[in-house]
């Protein structure tokens, strides 16, 4: 009986109104930038400017080295954190507390100014060098960013390690695997599923965090942009060129993360 009656679909007027409003805001912002005193034609030139490219390469090298070092250190600290040795455990807790607790910028500045308190750095009988020579802007930035990140990585790795079922370790032991082999072949590959997503996130943060090295004069993207701008005063144009590079780097990192996650997604 009711089947021949016309059906009137629910009209979502609110969606139309909010959609139009959002578009209006976006268009307004875009128009404002088009109208603003920005010499858009210059941006591509700055994007490929020699100084900018050097800044880009330095940003990549710094971010990758700091992240790789942080992952290696993070694994060690995570293992200490779950060790049966109470001294190791407490050391790890203190390490994470300190390096996670202090602002990265402050850590970078402390490393950069280390010469103020230690004139020389030496390993008795083996090695001695003036602190000024050893701690360049690059080294200071690497230490500041890497050590801070290693504290975060330690927590991420620990979460990954503890996520693996204890039965897996027992199975590995039962076929005669040593602890090192068990970690490498059984525990870590399975922990990766838990470790990779937050690590990718952190790496994206690291790419942007390298900008703090500009404060101590390391030629990364921001410093490169400022260098170019100091000659032609096109501050916004050079910053936009640097911004474009950051978006490129972050996009590539996101795609890489996607494929890494897929590769390690196999584990059950």
């Amino acid at each position, binding site marked *: 009986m009711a089947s021949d009656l016309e059906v009137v679909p629910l009209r979502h007027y609110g969606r139309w109104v909010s959609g139009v409003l959002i578009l209006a805001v976006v268009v307004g912002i875009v128009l404002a930038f088009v109208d603003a005193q920005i010499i858009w034609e210059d941006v591509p030139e700055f994007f490929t400017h020699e100084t900018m490219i050097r800044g880009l390469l330095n940003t990549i090298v710094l971010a990758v080295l700091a992240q790789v070092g942080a992952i290696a250190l993070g694994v060690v600290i995570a293992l200490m954190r779950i060790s049966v040795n109470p001294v190791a455990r407490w050391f790890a807790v203190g390490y994470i507390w300190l390096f996670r607790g202090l602002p990265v910028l402050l850590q970078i500045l402390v490393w950069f100014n280390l010469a103020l308190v230690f004139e020389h750095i030496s390993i008795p009988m083996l090695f001695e060098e003036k602190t000024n020579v050893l701690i360049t802007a690059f080294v200071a930035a690497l230490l500041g960013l890497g050590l801070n990140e290693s504290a975060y990585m330690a927590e991420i790795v620990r979460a990954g390690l503890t996520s693996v079922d204890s039965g*897996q370790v027992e*199975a590995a*032991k*039962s076929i*005669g*695997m040593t602890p090192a082999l068990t970690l490498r072949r059984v525990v870590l590959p399975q922990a990766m599923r838990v470790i990779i997503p937050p690590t990718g996130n952190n790496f994206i943060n690291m790419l942007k965090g390298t900008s703090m090295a500009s404060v101590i004069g390391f030629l990364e993207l921001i410093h490169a942009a400022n260098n170019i701008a100091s000659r032609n005063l096109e501050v916004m144009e050079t910053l936009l060129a640097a911004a474009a590079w950051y978006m490129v780097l972050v996009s590539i990192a996101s795609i890489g993360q996607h494929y890494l996650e897929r590769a390690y997604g196999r584990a*059950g």
Partner: protein
Amino acid sequence: MAALVEAVGVRKSFGHTEVLKGVDLAVDRGEVVCLLGPSGAGKSTFLRCVNHLETIDAGRIWVDGVPVGFRQAHGKLYELREREVARQRRDIGMVFQRFNLFPHRTALENVTEGPVRVLGLDRAAARADAMALLDRVGLSDKALSYPRQLSGGQQQRVAIARALAMEPKLMLFDEPTSALDPELVGEVLDVMVGLARDGMTMIVVTHEIGFARSVADQVAFMVDGAVVETGPPSQVLDNPQQPRTQQFLAKVY
């Protein structure tokens, strides 16, 4: 000839709870021993002590004349490092209640993992051996499947193949069919029967009285952290002497 496994006065506590209160057990070469008893009796804990997944507090366990977890020298027992214990475990296979297959590796890779990584066998040779073992447990067509693609019974059979790949002298089974759907129990027990027939020395913690009756050479009945009665199944299962054994069997049947 000395027993392959000899446990004397094995004690183990977790915190303030004493789970094993002096377990004695001897298992001869080629013998199948079933550990029966109510849950909480310490059967699984004892089994885990045999390959040193648990450290015992007192007593001693010898496997093939070697004290498990220790090195005997100068009239003393030196506690072994985990790396050295790992070497002892090569000769002792273990099958777990919850299979514990490596989920990130195929059935075949699960089986070759030990021979290749622990024994240092050539990959191709290990693969051939592993395929033969998978065939023996009836799963040669599942070699490239991941554990999550297999049923519980199939996973447990792969787990048995993984343990056998190390060519152990002794196989430990910790309630191998307890986590299985009832219709899958048979396929796992069949593999174990075949293994027993081939002369493998086995210690089996189980609730499968039927399996114990037909396969076991010896049944050991455990209650409250101690073995209270041992003997051939016909004696322990059909004519139990201890009241605790009688009570348990009355409930199970």
